[in-house]
């Protein structure tokens, strides 16, 4: 055994080449990869998921452990969104930088006030999170706050480039603050509209724009739409004017279609994040999420 230990150490020494170049950033979701791209474009940025994958249900795949092993900073939504896979990556990656509570582990939900926090959580409520809704990237003010704290985190981890990250934030912040009133003006007709949507994926978007989510295709968070539940939603459409049935790209459209056909409503598929369908930035994502909703106002 002694010789195999020696070999192991010799092997390690060879592979531990100095790592002086830009930061390695591990983003749990593509929206945080896009945010990192704004603040640290020189960094090596890896997104663990795509906009077409349910971030609740990711496998702790070997490829993700390998990426986590080299990360200087992991940027995740938090609020238990990644509870089914991120702790396993942290445990298996043998990377002391990305432990909870250390500068290398950043949770967006810890930087802002989340919506729908719960004092107590019971499993009969479905898959809900006590720390509130984690899909906060459709709240422009919250995302800006996250960007600000993330900038300081980057500065802390890479002090030589601190001013560079702050300059990138100032630039992003200026463009973002210019874009917000433009989006709000464009989205004004959506105010007061009601939709039926899949999960609470767009909770923050609807909160921002004043759209009411009158019904959820999921009977309880995390459970697939059932026929009985869809029938209940169909009854709801007879009592209330609903603009559209909304779902994200990673969600099955069959439940939405079943309901939409019977209620004669349009089905609107919204992009959930960046990196797919030509959406290459957070600005493009906000544009792309407003467009299909606006197309159905007043129908």
């Amino acid at each position, binding site marked *: 055994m002694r010789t*195999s230990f020696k070999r192991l150490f010799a092997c390690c020494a060879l592979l531990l080449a100095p790592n002086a170049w830009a930061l390695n950033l591990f983003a749990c979701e593509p929206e945080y990869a896009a945010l990192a791209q704004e603040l640290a474009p020189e960094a090596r940025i890896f997104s663990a998921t795509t906009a077409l994958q349910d971030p609740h249900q990711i496998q702790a795949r*070997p490829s993700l*452990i390998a990426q986590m092993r080299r990360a200087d900073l992991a940027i995740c939504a938090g609020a238990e969104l990644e509870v089914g896979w991120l702790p396993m990556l942290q445990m298996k990656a*043998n990377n002391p930088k990305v432990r909870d509570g*250390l500068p290398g582990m950043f949770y967006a939900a810890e930087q802002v006030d989340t919506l729908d926090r719960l004092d107590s959580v019971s499993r009969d409520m479905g898959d809900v*999170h006590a720390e509130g809704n984690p899909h906060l990237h459709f709240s422009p003010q919250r995302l800006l706050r996250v960007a600000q704290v993330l900038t300081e985190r980057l500065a802390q981890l890479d002090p030589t480039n601190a001013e560079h990250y702050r300059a990138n934030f100032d630039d992003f912040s200026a463009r973002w603050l210019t874009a917000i009133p433009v989006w709000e003006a464009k989205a004004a007709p959506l105010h007061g509209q009601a939709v039926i949507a899949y999960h609470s994926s767009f909770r923050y978007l609807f909160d921002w724009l004043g759209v009411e989510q009158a019904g959820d295709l999921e009977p309880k968070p995390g*459970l697939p739409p059932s026929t009985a539940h869809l029938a209940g939603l169909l009854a709801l459409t007879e009592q209330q004017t609903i603009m559209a049935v909304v779902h994200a790209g990673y969600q099955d459209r069959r439940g939405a279609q079943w309901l939409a056909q019977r209620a004669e409503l349009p089905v609107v598929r919204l992009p959930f994040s960046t990196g797919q369908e030509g959406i290459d930035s957070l600005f493009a994502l906000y544009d792309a999420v407003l467009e299909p909703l606006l197309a159905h106002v007043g129908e």
Partner: protein
Amino acid sequence: MSSTFRIHSTAIAVAALMGTAFSAQANLTNPEISLVLDGHYQSGERALGEREEGFALGHTELAISAAVDDKFYGKLTTVLESHEGEIEVGLEEAFIQTLAMPWALSVRAGRFLSEIGYLNNQHLHSDAFVERPAAYRAFLGGHYFDDGIRLNWIAPTDTYWELGTEVFGGDPLQAEGLDHAETVGVYHLYSKWGGDIGLAHSWQAGISWLRNENGQGGVHEEHAEDLLDDHDHDHSHGAEFTGRDLFNVSAVYKWAPGGNYKYNHLTISAEYFYLDSPFAGEEHDHDHHALAEEAGADYFDGWYVSGVYQISPSWSAGLRYGQMSAGLMEAHGDHSHYHPADIKETEAMLAWHPSHFSTVRLQYSHQDVHGLDHADDHQFTLQYVMTLGAHDAHQF
């Protein structure tokens, strides 16, 4: 076996812990607590199986884990099993693991599941079938956990590469009737690789070499027919067949459309075990030389292939085929006989998952068994596995 002690069905200390409120997030003052409830009705019993005929409980697990401080993580998993009216409390995991070692190294010490093979380090409650494959039951006692230490290293590469070594006491893999057993019996070297092919395909492969200083058995002083009875009574979680070297190769492939595991995904896994030199050579066996009239097999082996498809978030179905071949040397007065034993097993299961936390499974197993008693050719099992408390993060 030292890891398992029996108490009669009185209230046990762990029950007090269950009163603690389940935490939303683990931290120092608030450890993660999770409880697994597992029960079944089974129409028969599998050769070398753990599940009893009729109504019975499987592994009822209570696990507590948290970071101890910024340097160490700790986990305790107790298992309660019911056997013939008695409740057994087992300690399946009680380990610490380093959180802050440099150079991508990590050390785990205490009692923990060995990294051998693909299934062994997974908890039984995450299995897709009601029992481990026959090769696991024969060569690892279903799942091999032991007291020892592990050192592992993760390579700084895009393709996952893990290299590790484990040293264990080796009691669960100790051959019967050893005159002198080494106190440190098991040395294990393993390596695992893994990666993605595009967005939809992921794979992992592993190789293992487990050296067992106490694995070579001599002669059983009992009849083969007693083997399963003995297993029931002792219910030692030890391996039924041991040898000097146990080799394993494993491969897993998973597919989900676009890598989105929400609705459909497929898992195909296969493993092969090769157990070398199950019986001691003559040079170590002078005292029993006269007994060694009949030579045993030079090696035992076993393998399985399994495929599980998630049809929808609520339903999954799977097929598994596995076999193992081994044998026992038995004493009959002044001479010994070699009795081969083998299992061929075909299984089909259908599982209903009302949520992430609950599963109800129906499984049919067909067994073709030679040299081992008390096995039924056909078994139907209806099983539930449910988890309460902290949300488990599952391994690949």
